[in-house]
């Protein structure tokens, strides 16, 4: 009897195990086919010469050496991507924080403001970039018209190699602002009002309340936004592709756009995979650095 009962129990357990594996099977298969296999395969390809026609030929570290020594474009792409990341991440976060603080008040029309800030986030970057090509038009663009009103002769924006990257950055900040605002707002609303009431009783002014309460208690959210913004910035493709196709004179060529160019128009899969791996290493390194640095400035409330 005892033996039979144990057998049925383990039968139930076995059934649970089987059902669970059936439930996770699609996702597990997807991870295998579209994440694990590609990550390993592209690592291999990065050490070969391959044009998709003949079988891959082992090339050792030639592709990597090429990228960092004889390739003219890759260093430019790295620098441009760094410029884009620096230009979008810090100003983007600072601006979003200011707006979130303003929007966190008891104001009328929050719904309207939120919609205004959020529509650029959800709109396709392709549409947004086409719109900004028109806004940036040197002769007929509305931006240079607006600048003329206040007495400034506007630059040629995306038509000029010195101004092209700043143009991409301005557009990107405008587009992603709402995303960060929404995350900051959620963070701000998670801060207990008790702290502010206690501070008000102690006579702390607004600036002091901000620097001693809001900023530290919001820092985990700021950290999250920072990590996400850096990762997104390093992968930038669509905005410069639509605005400038990487030009003029490679001024807006980014890592991912260069990867795309090498892989698809030129079919040098080895070099493209090496670029992909460089990007991967940079992303992992910067994310690790962010996690390391968080000890210095991110404040976690006790008990959370």
């Amino acid at each position: 009897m005892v033996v039979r009962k144990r057998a049925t129990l383990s039968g139930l357990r076995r059934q649970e195990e089987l059902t669970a594996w059936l439930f996770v099977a699609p996702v597990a298969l997807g991870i295998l086919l579209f994440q694990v296999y590609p990550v390993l395969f592209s690592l291999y390809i990065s050490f070969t010469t391959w044009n998709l026609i003949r079988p891959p030929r082992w090339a050792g570290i030639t592709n990597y050496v090429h990228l960092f020594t004889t390739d003219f474009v890759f260093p430019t792409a790295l620098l441009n991507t760094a410029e884009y990341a620096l230009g979008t991440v810090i100003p983007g976060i600072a601006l979003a924080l200011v707006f979130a603080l303003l929007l966190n008040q008891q104001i009328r029309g929050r719904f309207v403001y939120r919609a205004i800030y959020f529509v650029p986030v959800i709109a396709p970057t392709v549409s947004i970039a086409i719109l900004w090509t028109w806004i940036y038009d040197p002769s007929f663009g509305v931006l240079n018209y607006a600048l003329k009103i206040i007495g400034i002769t506007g630059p040629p924006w995306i038509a000029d190699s010195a101004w092209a990257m700043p143009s991409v950055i301005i557009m990107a900040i405008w587009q992603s602002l709402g995303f960060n605002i929404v995350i900051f707002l959620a963070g701000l609303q998670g801060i207990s009002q008790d702290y502010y009431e206690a501070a008000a009783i102690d006579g702390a002014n607004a600036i002091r309340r901000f620097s001693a309460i809001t900023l530290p208690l919001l820092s985990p959210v700021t950290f999250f936004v920072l990590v996400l913004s850096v990762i997104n910035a390093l992968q930038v493709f669509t905005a410069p592709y639509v605005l400038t196709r990487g030009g003029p004179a490679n001024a807006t060529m980014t890592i991912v756009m260069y990867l795309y160019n090498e892989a698809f128009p030129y079919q040098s899969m080895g070099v493209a995979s090496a670029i992909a791996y460089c990007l991967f290493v940079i992303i992992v390194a910067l994310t690790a650095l962010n996690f390391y640095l968080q000890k210095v400035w991110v404040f976690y409330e006790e008990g959370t």
Partner: protein
Amino acid sequence: MSREAPVLASSPRQAIRPSRRQFRMRRLVGSLTIHVPLSLCGVVMAFPLVWLLSTSLKDPGEQFAFPPQLIPTPLYLKNFTDLFRLLPMWLFIFNSMKISVLSVVGGCLSSALAAFAFARMRFRGRDVLFAVLLATMMIPTQVTIIPTFVLMRLLGWLNNHAALIVPNVFGSAFNVFLLRQFYRGIPQDLIDSAKIDGAGFVRIFWQIFIPLGTPALASVAVFNFLWSWNDLLGPLIFLNTQNNFTITLGLTFLQGRAGETRGHWGVMMAGALLGVIPMIVLYLLAQRYFVQGLARTGIKG
């Protein structure tokens, strides 16, 4: 956590009571210092989109008018008819819809199943598999795109929408993670009493977790839809004949073709607008889920 709760909490200012008149003055000044910068910035933020709409309705002459006019007179609808004559925009929109909807439906279902198993079932290898899943969130799509291309070529799916749909149908780590967090919060009592009533895991999943998990599932769905709809790199790599183009790919193609029409910039803006409108509709229908989804990832991620 309710979004509205902190608004109801009393403001620290009320702790020290000023006279009623002082209070009113202070409130007026306070609300002005908030509303003036906010609405100024709101105008700056909203202007580009207003300009998009405005230019799409301008006749060729008015587009270059000096000074530029905000409200087109007369409304020039020919940009849209020219656009549809130039390129099969409805087909692009249909293709995008098809790819996005199928990706979302498949991706949500498979992710929800896996999330349920990870959250509420015991099986060997669960923790290892979940760790692997989380680790894959670190991999940028660009690293996987060449091998995926090779795989699709092998399957004969180049220039086929399947190449853009099928990988999404297998779900994603992001979806599973978000849904698992939510499913862990559903009370165990519900599962236990369902089990006593003789329900198996399939029924528990379908009749308890799917209905109770709707808010989380809706958040996942809107974000997946957004990513599918807005994706350019995927369609650029996998699709190469015009009839298969998505709206985003079609718009980059339009960049090279709009010059053939009389209303060049107006036609481009009309096209760009067609890409934006479905997302605005989605936002209006589901804005709660956009915001909740972001808040959930932002705070608990």
